[in-house]
């Protein structure tokens, strides 16, 4: 498994754990009426920081094990995989954003709209990691 594939696995797992936890909190708050938006703002900020810290820590750990590969940058296959996955993730992001725009037009609250936007960004990012991993596995020996 290449350095880049390992970083995608760690990013996907970290995103899945952190953001599943966050959105389960959001989902449980929705039926209870208006949520404390400041509480969730801090929760989202904490989840974002935790995601970044885990991503960076994983990259550092993998780079220590494979310093040459980490320093070499992506090769042409990595770039092709990133371009292809990024293109699909971009399409998913656009579809998600259109849905949020329509939803907010039909009366979603500020809390629902902001969290739906966040969910769209997180989902698009996880889809990108997932597609990259799928491509790496498909081409693996």
């Amino acid at each position, binding site marked *: 498994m*290449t350095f880049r594939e390992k970083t995608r696995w760690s990013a996907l797992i970290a995103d899945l754990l952190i953001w599943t936890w966050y959105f389960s909190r959001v989902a449980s708050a929705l039926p209870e009426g208006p949520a404390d938006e400041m509480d969730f703002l801090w929760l989202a900020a904490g989840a974002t920081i935790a995601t970044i810290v885990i991503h960076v820590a994983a990259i550092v750990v993998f780079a220590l094990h494979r310093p040459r590969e980490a320093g070499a940058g992506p090769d*042409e*296959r990595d770039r*092709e995989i990133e371009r292809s996955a990024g293109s699909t993730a971009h399409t998913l992001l656009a579809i998600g954003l259109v849905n949020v725009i329509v939803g907010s037009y039909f009366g979603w609250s500020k809390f629902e709209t902001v969290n739906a936007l966040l969910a769209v960004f997180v989902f698009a990012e996880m889809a990108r990691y997932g597609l990259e991993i799928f491509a790496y596995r*498909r081409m693996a*020996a």
Partner: protein
Amino acid sequence: MGKSLNNQIRTLRFHAGEMTQAELGEKIGVTRQTVAAIEQGKYSPTLETAFKIADVFEVRLDEVFGWEEG
């Protein structure tokens, strides 16, 4: 069956003193895993990389890659 890209990289590596995939990758600027994927026909390299591979083994491009019935 349609035509597909095949290659003689494994044979050429053998004739080059059992050059490893990692060594070839280093010479052409890709990872060992990318060389493995090219060798197994799971990834088609760019034209530039294809020429680099031919250059490493000092053969013509059509001695490395072929376009034949799959």
